């Protein structure tokens, strides 16, 4: 009975993007001590190129979809979509990081290595078809993010952000694991497709109380990771305290990956018991939107405001999850893609205006930006309009498809309340635009030097993507619609 467990070349090819990134990150760690203080720039270039190569490899691997390594990971349209999304988020993060790190005198290879490790973890999360793989990917991504959040070790805000992120993150992981253990106990499997098979089997005689409890425990873990109510309280502190480029990264990469894994677990494994988790998701989606939007109204710190806004956006995506249909999945995928670009774009601007030591992150620091740096102000306007959901931007179609999915699933109330919430959100986004364009800059403001090449590139790319998705949404939406059916 010796079964051959050697991986075939085909399987290795499906796993190639992760292997490449791990290899490059390790090489960076080896080269780091060998390079002088002014030779750190090359690590940014290396990581940038390796991410580009990994994106190409993911596209190539998508041509030959299927499972790999005894069905531990599965490469399908869904995982390819999210793999590319988190890698693009990584590319944009690296672009906005280099200048920031040099300014803070903390440029080192470890930063790029940790970003790459985190992306490897996220790629595993989005392609895992097995709870063990999912969990290891989640931990890789989380541990790297904890360290990144505290990367400037001499800054108290960074220390505090890292510690809070770590404590609440590992608390969430522990609960998630407890739920996973119960799922294993009741179904006998940790493979998502097998769990689905057991739950669908009418003869399996499942204890529904236990399954509901396990789902609720897993929900606690997932809700923490995507910062959904009632487990959103860590996000504002962590986002405010972390270095601005890291905040940009945390608010998109790990979040998109966590939503991908949430979607896959719900749609693949627990779709048969949807009555059990639907009310939970419904309540959480509503609470997340309300808490995020109303708390954002009162903020004066831009990073904190964007943190609450990202909580609110998690709430909209939860609405799409509640719909648990192919349309809902596709809407969530489209929304996450547009959210990635508009949010990283907004944080690129925040990174730029923050200056050394992040002294300028209050809303008042935006005053008169339209006169001081008209192009940057215009870019930020595009991102904020998109976050509001104004037509011709990506955010509009994102919200449109989500509420459409909710209406199709007969969740009229959730859709209506979600739309009311976006109206509230318009207030605080437009307030930022008003401050930029209507208020005169005060005299004691420092001179803003021209943005670095990296920040310019990231801003223009994100703005172009935001507008592109707003004008031609069907390009991404069609692909999302096709891949949504893979995870059922």
């Amino acid at each position, binding site marked *: 009975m010796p*079964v051959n*467990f050697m*991986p075939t070349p085909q399987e290795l090819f499906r*796993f190639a993007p992760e292997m490449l990134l*791990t290899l490059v990150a*390790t090489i960076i*760690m080896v080269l780091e001590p060998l390079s002088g203080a002014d030779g750190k720039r090359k690590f940014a270039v290396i990581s940038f190129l390796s991410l580009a190569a990994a994106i190409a490899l993911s596209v190539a691997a998508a041509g030959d979809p299927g499972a790999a*390594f*005894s069905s*531990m*990971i599965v490469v399908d349209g869904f995982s390819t979509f999210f793999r590319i999304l988190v890698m693009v988020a990584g590319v944009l993060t690296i672009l906005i990081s280099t200048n920031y790190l040099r300014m803070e005198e903390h440029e*080192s290879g*470890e930063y790029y*290595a*940790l970003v790459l*490790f985190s992306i*490897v*973890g996220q790629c*595993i999360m989005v392609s895992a078809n*097995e709870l*063990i*793989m999912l969990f*290891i*990917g989640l*931990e*890789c991504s989380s*541990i*790297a993010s*904890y*360290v990144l959040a*505290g*990367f400037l*070790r001499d800054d108290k805000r960074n220390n505090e952000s*890292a510690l809070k992120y770590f404590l609440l993150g590992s608390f969430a992981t522990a609960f998630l694991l407890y739920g996973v253990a119960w799922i294993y*106990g*009741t*179904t*006998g499997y940790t493979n998502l497709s097998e769990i689905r098979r*057991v739950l669908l089997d009418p003869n*399996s*005689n*499942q*204890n529904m109380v*236990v399954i509901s409890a396990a789902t609720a425990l897993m929900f606690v873990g997932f809700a923490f990771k995507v910062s959904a109510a009632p487990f959103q309280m860590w996000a504002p502190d962590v986002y405010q305290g972390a270095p601005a480029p890291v905040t940009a990264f945390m608010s998109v990469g790990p979040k998109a990956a966590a939503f991908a894994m949430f979607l896959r677990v719900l749609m693949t494994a627990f779709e048969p018991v949807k009555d059990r988790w639907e009310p939970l998701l419904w309540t959480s989606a509503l609470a997340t939107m309300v808490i995020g939007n109303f708390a954002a109204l009162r903020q004066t710190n831009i990073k904190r405001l964007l943190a609450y806004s990202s909580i609110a956006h998690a709430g909209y995506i939860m609405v799409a999850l509640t719909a648990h249909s192919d349309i809902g999945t596709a809407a969530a995928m489209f929304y996450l893609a547009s959210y990635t670009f508009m949010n990283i774009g907004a944080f690129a601007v925040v990174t730029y205006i923050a200056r050394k030591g992040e002294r300028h992150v209050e809303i008042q620091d935006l005053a008169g930006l339209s006169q001081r740096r008209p192009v940057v102000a215009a870019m930020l306007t595009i991102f904020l309009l998109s976050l509001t959901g104004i037509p011709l931007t990506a955010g509009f179609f994102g919200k449109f498809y989500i509420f459409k999915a909710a209406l199709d699933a007969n969740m009229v109330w959730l859709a209506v309340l979600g739309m009311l919430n976006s109206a509230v959100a318009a207030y605080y986004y437009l307030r930022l635009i008003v401050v930029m364009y209507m208020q005169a800059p005060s005299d004691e403001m420092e001179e803003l030097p021209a943005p670095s090449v990296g920040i310019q590139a990231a801003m223009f790319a994100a703005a172009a993507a935001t507008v592109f998705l707003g004008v031609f949404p069907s390009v991404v939406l069609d692909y999302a619609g096709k891949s949504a059916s893979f995870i059922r």
Partner: protein
Amino acid sequence: MLETVFFYAFAALTLAGAILTVTMRSAVHCAIALISSLAGVAGLYLLQHAEFLFAVQIVLYIGGVMVLFLFVIMLVNLDAAARERQFHRHWLAALACLAGTGALVALFLTRGAESFKLGAPAAEAAPGAGNIETLSMLLFREYLVPFELASLLLLVAIVGGVMMAKKRI
């Protein structure tokens, strides 16, 4: 019969250790209570014929993680913290947890094993070979990729730990 006695002994060790861990004033005492709790868990593994996990628990958890904890306790000065108030806020949530524990144990004692009915187990035969042998077959064949990725995870943790704790990079 003997198994029952051992179960209750190890369970008592585990729970008493856990309760002391969250109530003791000095962090060093907490760590020692945690060690006894972990030792109780190790005993429970042995009772269920999970010999490999038993060894891992002793060597890795008690030997490794706990030494790490004690090391940090020595490194950061906790004397001042020990004189401070030890508990804070969240009384309600904690009370709810305690009530939950009480209700759970009471339910179990009154209704017995019936209160935790699970789906019927698969009718597969118990693995014949010794625990470590079968375990390694699984680990290095089906679970080879997660195993390799665990090494990646540890690498990330080493890089992260050094980044955070080292004085100068």
